[in-house]
C-alpha cells in the first residue's frame, strides 16, 4: 500500500497539473466521454457524471502559470484568477474540453463566460444562473431548467440520455466523496497535528481533476492511514480561514499560516467540494428535484448567495464554535467584491461576539509571505498570551 506521503505527493501533482493529463487520458478511453470544465465555486458534478462525463474544476493558474497574455484582457483592479484562466485557454491547456460552465458567483466570472464565447472555446459555454429565490416551485424549478440546459448541450455531443437510475448512482458517488472529505476535516478537527492543512488541500483539490471513483479511493486510503497516525500536538492556536472560496490562496500562504503558529481547522478553500451539507437522497424518481432541493436547503453559506433569511454571520460563528476555534482569519483575494463586501458584516459579528480575527489580502500568485507570517504570528502569540 502507498504511504501517506506518496499519496499526498501524487495529489499535489494532480492538483497543479495544468494540462489536466489524467482527465484527458480518461476521456481518450471512450469516445462518448466528455470533459466539462467549471469555474468556482459550486457545480453539481453529478449531472455530468451521469452523462458519461467528467466535470473538471478550473481554479486558475495559481502561482504555476506565468501570465503573459492574460493581463491584456483585464484591468489592474480586477482579481487575478480570470487572467490565469484566459492564459490557460489561449495556451490551449483546455484542448479536448467539450464545454465550460461558469457558475453565477460574481460579475467577473459572469463576464468571463462571455469572453469564452467570444473566443469560441469548447463546443458550449454555459453561464449557470443559480437561483437567488429559495422556494422550490420558483427558484428550484428554475435551477432544474438550468441543469437541463447543461445536459442538453452534453447530449448534443455524446447523445447520452440520463435516466433517474444513472443520476441516482452518480449522486451516491458524490455523497460518498463529500462524506469522506468531511471525515478528513473531522480528523483534522480532532487532531490537526496528524496532517497539515496544505496536505489536506492537495488531497481535496486532486478530486477536481480526476474521476470521482478514483478520488474516493484516495480519500479512503488517506483516512485509513490517518487513523493509524498519532503525531505530536504542537502549541498552536486553532483558526478558521474564510474568504478564499474562489481565487485560491497559494499553497505557500496556507503553509505560512500554519508555520506562524496556527492549525487551520476549518476553511473555505475549494468550498464547492463541500458545498452541499449532508447526503442528497439517492432513491428519488426525480433526482433533479433532489439535487435542487439540496441546493436550496442544504447549501453552505457563501458570499455569492443571498442570505437575508439565513444570515451568514450567524452561520460563521456557529461553525467557529463547532470547530472550537480561537480566532478567524479573513483572507480574501485582492479586488474580490463578494468576499470583501461581506467582511464588514462578518467582522462586526466577530467583534460583538468576542471572536478575535485578523484580515489580509492575497493574490493567487503572491510569492512573499513574510509580512503575512509576521501578522499571523503576532495574532497567534497574542491569543496564546490572553488565554
Amino acid at each position, binding site marked *: 500500500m502507498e504511504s501517506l506521503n506518496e499519496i499526498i505527493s501524487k495529489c499535489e501533482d494532480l492538483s497543479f497539473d495544468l494540462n489536466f493529463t489524467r482527465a484527458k487520458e480518461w476521456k481518450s478511453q471512450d469516445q462518448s466521454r466528455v470533459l466539462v470544465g467549471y469555474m468556482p465555486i459550486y457545480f453539481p458534478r453529478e449531472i455530468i457524471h451521469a452523462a458519461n462525463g467528467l466535470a473538471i474544476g478550473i481554479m486558475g493558474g495559481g502561482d504555476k502559470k506565468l501570465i503573459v497574455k492574460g493581463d491584456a484582457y483585464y484591468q489592474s483592479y480586477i482579481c487575478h484568477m480570470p487572467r490565469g484562466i484566459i492564459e490557460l485557454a489561449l495556451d490551449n491547456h483546455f484542448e479536448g474540453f467539450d464545454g465550460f460552465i461558469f457558475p453565477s458567483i460574481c460579475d467577473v466570472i459572469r463576464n468571463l463566460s462571455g469572453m469564452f464565447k467570444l473566443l469560441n472555446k469548447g463546443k458550449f459555454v454555459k453561464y449557470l444562473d443559480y437561483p437567488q429565490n429559495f422556494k422550490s416551485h420558483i427558484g428550484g424549478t428554475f435551477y432544474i431548467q438550468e441543469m437541463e440546459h447543461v445536459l442538453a448541450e452534453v447530449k448534443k455531443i455524446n447523445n447520452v440520455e440520463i435516466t433517474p437510475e444513472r443520476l441516482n448512482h452518480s449522486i451516491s458517488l458524490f455523497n460518498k466523496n463529500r462524506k469522506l472529505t468531511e471525515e478528513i476535516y473531522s480528523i483534522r478537527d480532532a487532531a490537526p497535528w496528524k496532517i497539515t492543512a496544505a496536505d489536506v488541500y492537495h488531497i481535496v483539490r486532486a478530486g477536481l481533476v480526476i474521476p470521482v471513483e478514483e478520488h474516493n479511493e484516495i480519500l479512503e486510503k488517506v483516512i485509513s492511514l490517518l487513523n493509524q497516525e498519532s503525531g505530536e500536538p504542537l502549541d498552536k492556536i486553532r483558526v478558521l480561514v474564510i474568504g478564499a472560496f474562489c481565487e485560491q490562496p497559494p499553497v505557500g500562504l496556507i503553509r505560512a499560516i500554519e508555520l506562524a503558529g496556527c492549525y487551520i481547522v476549518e476553511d473555505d478553500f475549494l468550498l464547492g467540494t463541500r458545498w452541499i451539507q449532508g447526503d442528497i437522497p439517492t432513491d428519488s424518481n426525480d433526482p433533479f428535484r433532489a439535487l435542487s432541493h439540496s441546493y436550496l436547503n442544504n447549501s453552505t453559506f457563501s458570499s455569492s448567495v443571498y442570505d437575508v433569511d439565513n444570515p451568514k454571520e450567524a452561520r460563521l460563528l456557529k461553525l467557529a464554535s463547532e470547530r472550537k476555534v480561537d480566532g478567524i482569519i479573513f483572507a480574501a483575494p485582492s479586488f474580490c*467584491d463578494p468576499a470583501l463586501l461581506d467582511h464588514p458584516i462578518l467582522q462586526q459579528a466577530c467583534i460583538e461576539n468576542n471572536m478575535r480575527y485578523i484580515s489580509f489580502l492575497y493574490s493567487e500568485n503572491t510569492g512573499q509571505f513574510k509580512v503575512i507570517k509576521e501578522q499571523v504570528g503576532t495574532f497567534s502569540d497574542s491569543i496564546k498570551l490572553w488565554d
Partner: protein
Amino acid sequence: MSKDIAKEKSMIIQKEMISRLFKDLSTAKETGKKVVYTFVPGNISELILSFGMLPVYPEINALQSGMRKKSADFIRDAEKIGHSEDVCTYVKCDVGMMINGNIGPNGEKIPEPDLFLLSYTGCFTFMKWFETLKRLYPDVPVALLHTPYQENHKVTPEMTAYMVKQLKEEVIPKMEKVSGNKYDEEKLKACLRNSSKVEDYIMKIFDTTKNVPSPIDAYFAGVYYIGPINNGFRGSDEAVNYYHELYNEILERVNLGLGPITPEGVMEKERFRLVVEGPPNWTHFREFWKLFYDMGAVIVASSYTKVGGVYDMGFRVNPEKPLESLAEYCMNCYTNLNLEQRVELLSKCITDYKADGFLVNSIKSCNSFSAGQLMIMQQLERQLEIPVGFIESDLVDPRYFSYSNIKNRLESFFQMLDQRKMY
C-alpha cells in the same frame, strides 16, 4: 463656443420633477407614504408607483454626492468601519451617507426605507449592497427580484416565467403588506402605457445623433436626459410630458443645424464623433466633459445611458402583459446583456451614428461594466477597424481621477482620430 445657455423648458421641467420627488420624500413620514429603496437597472418604478409608494435610488444619491464633492468623506467613513478600498465606491458612499444621518445630496434627510426592492439586475454588488443595508435596518423587509442573465443571447419563456413567479409571490405580496394597498393591475397597465411612450421618445431622442452635427451629447448630456426615467418617473404622466418636450427641443436643434449644448454654450464645430462604453466619473464631471468639448468631440452614443433599459433592439414594455413586461424590461438592461450582445449593440451604435472612434472609460468600482471591457474593445477594433481609446477613472472616489493622465491619453486618442481623418 457660443455662450448663450438659457435654460431650456425641459431642463426646468426636470428640475421641478426632481425637486417635487425630494419634497415628497422629505415629507413621506408625515404624509404616510411608504418608501422603497431600489436600483436603476431593473428599475420597476411602475410597480412602486402603482402601490402609491415612493422610490429612492441609492446609486443616484451616491452619484449626486460625487457631483457635490461629498463622496470622498462618505467613502472614508465607510472605510473606517471596515469597508475595503477595493470594492464598489457607490456602496461605500451610500453607507457613509447613512452613517452620517442619511442626509441626501440636497441637504434634506432621506426617509428611512420601508422596503428594499432588490431588483438584482446585471450586478452582483446590488445583492451585497442591500445585504449591507439590511444590517443597518434590520426590521425592513427585502423583496428580492432575481433577474436571470441573458447568457445565451436571449430571453427565454422560462426566464420570464421565473421572474413573473417572483413578482407574484415575493415582490407583490411584500408591496401589498408594506403599502397597505392591494395590487391593482389596471393601475400598473396605465403606468406601463406611459413607459412605453417614454421608451419610444428615449429611442427617438438618442437616434437624433444620426444627424451631423449631432444635436446632443449622448453621454455627458445623455445622463441628464435619462435622469427622470431612472430616478423614479418610469410610468408617470410627468415623464411623458418631459420626454415629449425634450424631443421637440432637440428636433428644433436639428432643424436649425445646431450642435450639442455644453456647460459653456453650444458646441460650434463638431470634430470627432465617439461612442463611449462605461459610466462617467462624477466627482470631476465638468472637467471631464470639458476635455471632450474643448476638442470638438461629441459622444453620439454611450452604453451607460442604457443601464436603465435598452430600447435600441426593439424592446418596449407591453401594457397588456404587465408582469411579463416588467420581467423582460429588467432582463434587457445593458449590464444584463452578455458580452457578445454588448459588442453587437456597440457595433450597431458605431455604425448607425457614424462614429469616428470608440472609447472605454473603465471604472475601477464596477466589475459589472469593466470585466471584459478590454475584450469588447479588441473585438470592435478588429471588426470595424475603428480607432479605440482607453481611459480609467472611478465613479465617486476622487482618489482615482487623474486629470493629467486622462488628458494625456485623450490627446493621443484625438491625434490618432485626426490622423485617420487625413487619409
